[in-house]
């Protein structure tokens, strides 16, 4: 009987704590047998600090992921720029130009200006710029 009696009474007290208004709970802080303002504030600070630390950790992890993605992509662009055939690059560029809806006008104008030279290096530079703008997709196995 004792365990169920104590449990039942404690459950009723807990129900009453949950049903009491915020004003009543706040007014009772510091009363005999009740939490003090210091305890409440300490837990409040602990929670806020833990959340701040957690957010900072996630931000750092995401930063680090982004940096590693950028570094891998940079290596891939440089590798493809030196290994990909110029004809293939021209093909990629033509595909971008033909897809006018997905390309801002400014990019088309810049492309026309840049392509006036017409050398292999110019084509490689244009190709690289379009890759960096995300208008040409590149894959590791290219």
């Amino acid at each position, binding site marked *: 009987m004792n365990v169920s009696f104590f449990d039942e009474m404690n459950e*009723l007290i807990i129900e009453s704590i949950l049903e009491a208004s915020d004003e009543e709970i706040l007014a009772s802080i510091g009363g005999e047998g009740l939490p003090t303002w210091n305890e409440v504030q300490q*837990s409040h600070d602990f929670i806020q600090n833990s959340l701040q630390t957690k957010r900072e950790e996630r931000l750092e992890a995401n930063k680090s992921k982004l940096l590693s993605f950028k570094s891998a992509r940079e290596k891939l662009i440089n590798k493809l720029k030196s290994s990909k055939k110029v004809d293939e690059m021209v093909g990629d560029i033509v595909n971008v130009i033909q897809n006018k809806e997905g390309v801002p006008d400014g990019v088309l104008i810049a492309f026309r200006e840049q392509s006036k030279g017409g050398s292999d290096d110019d084509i490689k530079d244009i190709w690289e710029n379009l890759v960096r703008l995300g208008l040409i997709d590149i894959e590791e196995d290219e």
Partner: protein
Amino acid sequence: MGTEEYYSEVEVEHQLAKLSQADIARLIQIFTVKGCEARAGMAGGDVLNQAVTRVLGGHRLWRKDHSAVQFLIGAGSSIIDNEAKRRAREQLTSSIDEFVEETDLNEVSAEVAERLSNKSVQCEVEAEQDDAGVNQWLNKIRRLFSGDTDVLCYLEQKLSGIKKAEILHFCQFTDTTYRAVERRFKDKIRKRFPLGFGSRESQS
């Protein structure tokens, strides 16, 4: 088990960030009633802090239909129960160690047999002591409500394990009266016994 039933890592942080001072005070008080100090030797605030750490560490999934307070009560209760069990095991181990150290090995069998034969008597004594403890608490509650016949009727029926429908009949309560009486009872024992019941000596 769809993930949409549970808060994501970021959503958990948003929920915890919204905990008010009143919520924190409620949680500390509830952990005290659940016996954090008496059973686990932990302060209510420490239980709450550990619960938050565990939740942020992703050790416990948080269903979206549970409020922050409800969810943290569950997390904190597990911490208290686990610590209480750990302490009980530790106490038992040290008792066994003491027993082995203090006992002449030649007399162990006789000693064990003696202790076992006394076990049922010991259990009966402990049960009697427990009942005496409950009666002391009951008397305190009855004194608290002396003169409030509705609450005393409600209490006596509750103690007999009678359910609400029968309490309504026995005590001649309407549904509204029942709720009012129960509310009066709960609120008054919360204010009078803020540490809860059982294993506490300080609420004389």
